[in-house]
């Protein structure tokens, strides 16, 4: 098994998200018809079923809704990171994202304010992560 980490599967729907992440921007799919905002993207708006979906830039701010510390590496690429912290963030724009909580560990609490940070990997992929604000 490879010791690299899993990469996102980039497709025509999510490519704008990953292109923007490399430029330090967090994009969310947006419905111009009804205003619904989401990630991951879909082919139609799940609220009003409109087909033509666009993207908006998130302010990158949100609240910590939960977190865990992974002590088992299901992917070999994470073995050297154990334990690593996964977080659940509610963005101010509405969507829930799973990511990593990075930076000074502090004492995380439910509802703590977090802000996005961008971490480049060595595979031309940049992952949006979060730090306590």
């Amino acid at each position: 098994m490879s010791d690299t980490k899993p990469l996102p599967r980039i497709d025509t729907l999510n490519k704008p998200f990953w292109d923007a992440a490399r430029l330090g921007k967090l994009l969310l799919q947006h419905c111009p018809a009804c205003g619904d905002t989401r990630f991951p993207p879909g082919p139609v708006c799940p609220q009003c079923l409109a087909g033509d979906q666009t993207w908006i830039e998130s302010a990158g701010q949100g609240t910590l809704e939960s977190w865990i510390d992974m002590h088992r590496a299901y992917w070999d690429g994470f073995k050297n990171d154990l334990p690593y912290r996964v977080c659940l963030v509610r963005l101010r724009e509405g969507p829930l994202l799973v990511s990593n909580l990075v930076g000074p560990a502090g004492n995380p609490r439910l509802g703590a304010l977090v802000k996005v940070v961008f971490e480049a990997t060595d595979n031309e992929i940049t992952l949006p992560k979060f730090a306590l604000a």
Partner: protein
Amino acid sequence: MSGLNALKDKIAVIGVGNTQYGNFPGTDEYGLAAQAFGNALTDCGIGKNQIDGMLVSRIPSYVRMGEVLGLNPRWTIPLPAHGRMSGMGIIEAATAIAAGQCEVAALLYANIGRSRRVNYGGDESPGTWDPWGFTSPGAAHALAFRRHMELFGTTTRQLAEVPVSIRYHAGLNPDAVMRTPITIEDHESARFIADPLRLLDYCLINDGAVCLILTSAERARDFAKPPVLISGWGAQDTFSPSSIANFDIDFWYPALGSAGRQAYEMAGITHQDVDALMCYDNFSPTVLFSLEGLGFCKQGESGAFVENGALSLGGRLPVNTDGGHLSNSYMQGWALNVEAVRQLRGECGARQVPDCQVVQYVQATPCTRSIVYTRG
């Protein structure tokens, strides 16, 4: 709902069977399912030619299954591997019999995850969040339980009551895989997998198969064992908004409330009538969420509810008297429904719930289902 309520007590389970549970690299899903099928036929005393309906789950090919068993049914349904298919499958079979699509249905499930070293995470089925290292159903349940701890003050010592009680039951079940008693301290010192969840919060992975045979309550009187009636069921799915597999930010509370209400109304009971609960326990927090959602306690109060062995035989609500997924066998809900039948027949020996009249099954999953069984 009135249409469904008319099906109260109309369908019965007449036969149940299972294999041994363990590590069986020398066989496969078809071999295991054939054993369970044979045991279920013997249990109800019928020949296989009376089977005219077949439902399979986690079995690769329904065609091969029919060939292996020599069955040419009138009604066949293949379902995928997810555990949530157990509750869904039993309800579908009941409605198929009620509609006359078949008269006697065999429901078959087999799992070879232990001998084939299934991990339930990583490269087996990468999802949206794997690049951040978020993988495995257990991680999703850990994320939910941390939230429950933060919102309601639930502790891991309270959580430990779940695997401790369920292991106690496994110790009373000679067929269970893990029978050595454990304590709250054992739970608290077990290694973390996804903190706050530890090894003892995780279900087993083992091979085995289960079969249930259903028919109409009217026909059910003709068979070897006293029939167990399907008295009610309820259903509520939660697909949106959630890209996070095996996770609901509300602990499936709305879905459990809805499915539970439907099942109680159809059966004409309340949760106070339930003598034993068979609760899908893929990870121990699911049991806490289920108790709250069904109304056995208020939301946020399941930690206090389960203290002092409340879920053990003799406690206020015996849960998973066979040892559940945590300690008996990972048969993804199917074996819990078999245990419901055996409890209502009074066949459970040392783990028998005295004067057992009503047993409820529940699965808190993206497809939440509950089924109420009663003595025929």
